[in-house]
């Protein structure tokens, strides 16, 4: 099953890249994650609790990251590969994740090929795309919050302060609320 998602984040490419590869961040933002442990370089063990009907249950699995492309002007990318098994069956697959500039922000494209089995395949296949979409939305929203939290995080850097001040001033002139450009 092929799945495609994309989303524009209000963060520079490098920041998004680092956050997406930070196990501590991932442990906070993956929906339903109960456990996220590093077991090797770019390899993680995870326990996931899914509450969506038809795939509801607890899943154990492993994910690893390979083929990292970073640097130069072209898009950054890596391949996420993994699989897991739980009460309603199993899933495995890989996803190519691409980071490209989109104005001041970064566009994230996820291109995944997923296989499912057991009850997820039988009962859930008709809704699996919808479920994946819901989970991706949850993930992206949590990730967005995470990025914002980082930006407004305690102390903050000088650069961050200056950027915030600049936005505030720009906002005054354009009579629009500061922050979001979209």
């Amino acid at each position: 099953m092929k799945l495609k998602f994309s989303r524009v984040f209000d963060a520079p490419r490098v920041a998004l890249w680092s956050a997406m590869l930070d196990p501590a961040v991932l442990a906070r933002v993956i929906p339903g994650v109960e456990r996220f442990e590093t077991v090797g370089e770019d390899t993680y063990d995870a326990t996931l609790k899914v509450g969506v009907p038809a795939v509801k249950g607890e899943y154990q699995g492993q994910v690893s990251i390979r083929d990292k492309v970073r640097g130069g002007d072209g898009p950054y990318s890596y391949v996420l590969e993994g699989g897991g098994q739980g009460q309603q069956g199993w899933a495995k697959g890989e996803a190519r994740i691409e980071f490209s500039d989109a104005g001041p922000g970064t566009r994230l494209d996820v291109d995944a090929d997923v296989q499912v089995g057991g009850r997820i395949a039988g009962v859930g296949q008709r809704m699996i795309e919808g479920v994946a979409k819901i989970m991706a939305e949850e993930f992206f929203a949590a990730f967005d919050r995470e990025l914002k939290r980082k930006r407004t995080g305690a102390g903050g850097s000088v650069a961050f302060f200056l950027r915030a001040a600049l936005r505030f001033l720009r906002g005054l002139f354009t009579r629009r609320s500061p922050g979001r450009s979209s």
Partner: protein
Amino acid sequence: MGYIGQRIPGRNNLRLARGAGQFTADVQMPNPCFMALVRSPYAHAEIEHVDVSAAQGLPGVIDIATAAEVAQATRPFSFARPPEVEVNLADMDGKRLREYALAERWVGYSGRPVAAVVAEDPNTAAEAAERVAVQYRELPVVASAEDALKPGSPGAIPGWNDNLVFHTRYAKGDAASAIAKAPGVITGRVQVQRHVPVPLEPRAFVADYSTRTGRLTMYASTQMPHTDRSILAGALGMASEDVQVIQPDVGGGFGCKVPGSDEEVLVAFFARRLERPVRWTEERSEYFLACGHARETWFDFEAGYREDGKLLALRIDAVADIGLPFGAWVQSSVTAYCLPCGYAVDHCEVSMRSVVTNKCKWGGYRGFGKEAASFCMERIMDRIADAAGLDRVEVRLCNFIPADAFPYGQVSGALLDSGNYQGAMAKLLALVDQEAFRQEQAAARTNGRCLGLGIGFELTPEGCSMPNSDFLQGWDGATVRMDPGGRVTVLTGVTSPGSGNETGIAMIVADELGVPLDTVTVVQGDTDRCPYGLGNFSSRSLMIGGSAALAAARELREKLLSVGAKMLDADPEDLELANGEIRVAAAPAPPAADAPRNPGGPAWSVPIRRVARKIYSHAFGAETAHVEPGLESTRYFRIGNVHHQPETEGRLSFYPTWPFMAVAVVVEVDVETGFVEVLRCAAVHDCGTVVNPTLVEANTHGGIAQGLGAALYEELLHDDAAQLLTTTLMDYTLPTAVEMPAELSVAHQETPTAATPLGAKGAGESGVAGPMAAVASAVEDALGVEGLALMTLPLKPERVWRSIREVAGAVQMGETA
């Protein structure tokens, strides 16, 4: 006038229609517990570890069984499989497979039971089953027959040198050289999709074990109670007599409820182990995964024909995807056995390779492989007609086995008992006014509507009797008993899956004993009460079970006549039984018959109940002392036209009777969407002597519904990992009343068989193959596109739509339509 031949509604109809049926899930037992299964989500894997600790801790969980325990407490399943499979496997390079009800180390299809849980309520059982953690190691999956046959394919079953379980071959003449010499040759592939039968009632079992008697009582939604009893007793190491199998009302079987399922053995296992009633009712998604699939077959054919449409030579190379080699995979051999069905071909070669894959085993399904064979032949007939530029009906008529050629030995050695195919086709054409339809079709075409007429012919042999089989035997037992009040009880070894054969059997017995139909009770489906029998399959219940009941009733009749003769002071030969009395055949009409024959002399007639009373109450009297006391007879009937001794009888012949049906359908096709609607359906059915036309028609209507489902909607789909994607009734489309044609008629032709005393053939599987073929033919006719050949089922809108566009010129036709 007797009851046989009359239109009498099924005696259980009203009870079932008002919801008073009692199905297995309705059977109440005190203090029951509920089973749920852990099923493999992988199609092919090794089981590395099973951890039940999380399930054990759940309140309400009573017991959990793993494979090792089941293997210790039960015998393996080789006994539970049809023995002919075992026989065949023995010849197959040592290919063997023995399995317990729970998979021990290896799973070969997704849905295979791995562990079983019993709890105080069904929800807790399901929750606990989800908590059983099984660690699998995936193995390479063989997901299709095509993959299975590729050189270097991974094995669907480890240790087997290839994925071929059996190669059935039949030949007559020299097909290769006859094809080379034929004026015309066509080739192609016909494909029938994977199905499940989908009865309204899924499988259900309720079992209890009595510590007092040491007996197990199993209520089962089964087709074969006695065979079931042998299987359960064998699996649990008990004596058959210590197992009672009761079949309550069954909400459809169609072949999928033959015994020998993992689930039933597990219910029995737990009932004995816990000494408590255990229940299991299948969920629909489990049914799709594990009950048993059927029919997935392709046929590569090469046919040589003459300009007049005569089929001179035929080669068929067929491959069936049987999943794992349990259950009823022998259906694929039956397909080969039937070819070339009702057609006479001098040179013919049939090859059927039954191939294992990592899919669910096959279960029986109405048609039992015969529907695929007929569908294949009908498609070939239409292709010959198209290639030779002939009428599709004419081509069939010129190839049918002549009516005077019966009994006819078909290519496989099958001995076709009787038939008149031309007669059925002629009667069908009289029902369907082809000329009027062509006018209707032309008129509709000017309004942009595409109507089409299609013809199909099916041959559906019945009464299967295989050598060395505990399941498939062509004999059965019946007890007929008359009580002192003259009421009759018939106990049969055959059962009814809801088809109404109990009504037909009652009619046969009532006629033989001359008693009113409502004084005859039929008891079926209880191994403690009924004589040994093989149950319900292959349309055998009426023709074989009815014949056994007839034989038993005949014995009773003779005793009644013998005593009646003494009571009437007449010769038994001068007497007749009718309307509840024995009377002198030459008796005058009432009221004269009410008077004595001469003053002070005997009467003209005596009520049968008085004769019965006399036999019970005056066993030492002058009228009764010459007969054995009691009014009960048990007889076993062996059907004719079965030949199991090739050395003295020629080739193996295991189908005794060969009913057939010609069918026509009218469809409308929406060219824009490819959607097909069936508007009308007419059929002429021939099952020999018709005991009850209403029941035969009801059965045939059901068959037609399943045939239309096969033609247009139903299809089990798997992905590349052999994961079943269609596990709900939203994904696996069944025809409903809405999809049935508004006009549906079934007429009868009667060509009796010599294999049964009444001349009746089986009638339970008719109606499937004909509509499959007729719909395909009708859709082609509706589209009227030259070169369009719809050879793959089902004809779902997408497939029809694509076919229209793939064929050259189709687009223009779509535009003009």
